[in-house]
């Protein structure tokens, strides 16, 4: 039965198709394949962009901009693709050429596709059509012109994956995905789920709000973060085995990350440019770095406004400052010291009496007179001065060293101020939670005011 059926079903003789129609069919097929190519080429970067936008966008709750950006990306992709297609030769001609190549048609299909039959002798056209039809019968479009993934798609996919993975795996990039306040808010949300840590959640929420305050400088933000971090550290030490220690640990990590970020951004512009001699003993010598010793920190913070941005634009100055033995070590050590001390100072709202002994020791030119701490400046000096953001201290006239035969660098090293000096940042008096601040007294006025 089966045998008979097989015998009876003789294969149909392939009906010869008009070659022009075959060319048009192939052209349509190519158009479809082009469309697939376009979509496949555009989708991976689009997906990656959407992912990145969502990753960073949800954090900043800016769905409108995400949608807009995604639409713009899609439109740009489609426009590029349309441009490429316009630049390509007419598709019928290309299809005819492909058919010729496939069946060794020696430009039969191309001649038929491009030559107007009205101008050509009919009998020759007919003959050519017959020849092409015989050749075309050998062509199976599905078999001979299958859709194949283009190299461009693979490149696009791999590049998109690399970008997404890089974003996920590379911590600085990943952390850049969401803003600092958003991360702190996230931590607050986590803490709010644990009842006995609700108070901490509120603290973190308040901190996130403060971090968004544009009026606060990075230094102030950092101090706030450090303050909260310290509190959380204390709390987590107390409840090490208790419930919510994990959540607290996470919050701590987040705050540490935020603090690092802020420190980094501060360090990028924080260079103190001074002509004072730098003859420290290798510790705390880099007074211009973001985290210097206690004293250095103060002077760095004040000088940041004056020379910080300029320092950022001229990074080579920082390296010049650091040159010397133990410059980096001093910077690092000073940073640690400065960190802990400043947080403490801000928390207690009074001027630290320590002079950065735990941090990098800084010997600036002449010895800073030791003894009792300076008097509170604001109260004695009146409101006029306290209202100012900074106190700018005119540097006293310098006395230069003997210049006989000394080189320029040596001369510079010999420059000494006549009196010690200090510049101290003042807090904003109009800040909401401004603590009663006590400011350092500029050294040169100490004697006069006292």
């Amino acid at each position: 039965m089966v045998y008979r059926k097989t015998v009876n079903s003789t294969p149909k003789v392939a009906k010869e198709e008009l070659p022009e129609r075959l060319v048009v069919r192939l052209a349509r097929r190519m158009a479809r394949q082009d469309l697939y190519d376009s979509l496949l080429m555009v989708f991976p970067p689009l997906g990656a962009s959407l992912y990145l936008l969502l990753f960073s966008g949800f954090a900043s709750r800016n769905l409108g901009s995400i949608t807009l950006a995604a639409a713009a990306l899609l439109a740009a992709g489609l426009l590029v693709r349309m441009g490429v297609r316009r630049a390509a030769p007419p598709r019928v001609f290309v299809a005819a050429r492909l058919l010729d190549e496939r069946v060794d048609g020696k430009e039969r299909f191309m001649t038929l596709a491009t030559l107007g039959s009205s101008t050509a002798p009919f009998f020759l056209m007919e003959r050519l059509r017959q020849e092409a039809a015989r050749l075309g019968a050998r062509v199976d479009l599905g078999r001979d012109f299958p859709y194949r993934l283009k190299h461009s798609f693979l490149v696009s996919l791999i590049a998109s994956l690399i970008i997404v993975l890089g974003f996920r795996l590379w911590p600085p990039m990943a952390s850049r995905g969401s803003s600092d306040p958003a991360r702190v808010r996230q931590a607050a949300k986590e803490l709010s789920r644990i009842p006995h840590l609700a108070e901490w959640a509120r603290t973190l929420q308040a901190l996130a709000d403060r971090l968004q305050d544009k009026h606060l400088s990075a230094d102030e933000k950092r101090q706030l973060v450090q303050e909260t971090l310290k509190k959380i550290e204390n709390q987590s030490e107390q409840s090490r085995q208790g419930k919510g220690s994990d959540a607290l640990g996470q919050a701590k990590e987040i705050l540490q990350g935020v603090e690092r970020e802020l420190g980094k951004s501060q360090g990028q512009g924080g260079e103190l440019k001074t002509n004072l001699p730098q003859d420290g003993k290798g510790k705390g010598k880099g007074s211009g770095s973001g985290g210097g010793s206690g004293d250095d920190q103060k002077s760095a913070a004040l000088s940041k406004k004056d020379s910080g941005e300029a320092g950022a634009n001229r990074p080579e100055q920082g390296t010049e400052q650091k040159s010397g033995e133990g410059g980096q070590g001093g910077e690092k050590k000073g940073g640690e010291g400065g960190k802990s001390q400043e947080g403490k100072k801000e928390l207690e709202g009074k001027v630290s009496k320590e002079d950065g002994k735990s941090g990098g020791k800084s010997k600036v030119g002449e010895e800073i007179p030791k003894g009792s701490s300076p008097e509170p400046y604001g109260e004695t000096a009146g409101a006029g001065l306290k209202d100012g953001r900074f106190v700018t201290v005119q540097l006293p006239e310098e006395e230069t060293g003997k210049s006989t035969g000394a080189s320029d660098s040596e001369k510079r090293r010999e420059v000494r101020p006549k009196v010690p000096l200090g510049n101290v940042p003042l807090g904003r008096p109009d800040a909401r939670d401004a603590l009663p601040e006590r400011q350092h007294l500029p050294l040169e006025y100490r004697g006069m005011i006292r």
Partner: protein
Amino acid sequence: MEPEQFHEVFSSIEAEVKKVIVGHDDVIRKVLIAFFAGGHVLLEGVPGLGKTLLVKSLSRALGLSFKRVQFTPDLMPSDIVGTQMLTEGDGRREFQFRKGPIFAQVILADEINRATPKTQSAVLEAMEERQVTVFGETYGLESPFIVLATQNPIELEGTYPLPEAQLDRFLFKLVVSSPAPAELKEILHRTTGTDHPEAGQALSDNGATVVEEMKSLLRQVLIAPPIEDYVVRLVHATQPASQKGENSIPEVKNFLRFGASPRGAQSIILGAKGSALVNGRVHVSYEDIEAVLYPALRHRLILSFQAEAENVATDQILAVLVKKVPRN
């Protein structure tokens, strides 16, 4: 005429010529293509390669009238086109035009570069206009008409190289090369024995009509616009002035003084159409273009001094063009 008929007649003529000529298949084919395309051919080769025999055999196979003119420095134009001669008949004297050898259908202008330019130019009008003017009177030439000129590339002393204008009137310039050892052996067999094979007449008595039909069919052969564009690009690329910008071809810029004329493009297309028919097709392919590109353009490119100093041939420049000019 049907394409098959063309192919058949062409093959039979080719076969007759090949009875006499050993080797040179490509030269024979190109000469025949030029003949059916209505062009003239310049054959270049050292003496003794069978150029004259080739032309003689061809005329015999075609069954057309044949005349040979041996060009020498003292050859006069009247020796080619003919002259008025005083004749006496019925008691009165009158001038009568005596036709020269140019009035045959197949002309062999042997060593054309040995005649003076004045005589060479006498052939010009005949080649292009298919007519001659003597003493103000114009005489038409028989059709079909083909001039097959030969020149020796090595004996240049006492020769008058053909001017560019005259060279341009030849559809093809074919280089007749020395035979391969096997071909030489066959030549010896055929020519040193007692039997001397001769080409028979391939066309019947109405050969001229058949030839005209074949010529007409050749011009109807289909050619796709992209292929025409390719020819245009090729010919345009031979112009040194066109070589500007990133896609310039340094060989053309450095080695050519002048490129091919529009007549060069016409020669390529006509030759390609003939080649297509010979290969059993009714349409031109890129293959046909490249097959006739060298004979159609090699005598139309004027080499620069640098090219001559460096012994660069036009064929080398054409090979570069084929490589560098894109098909699409």
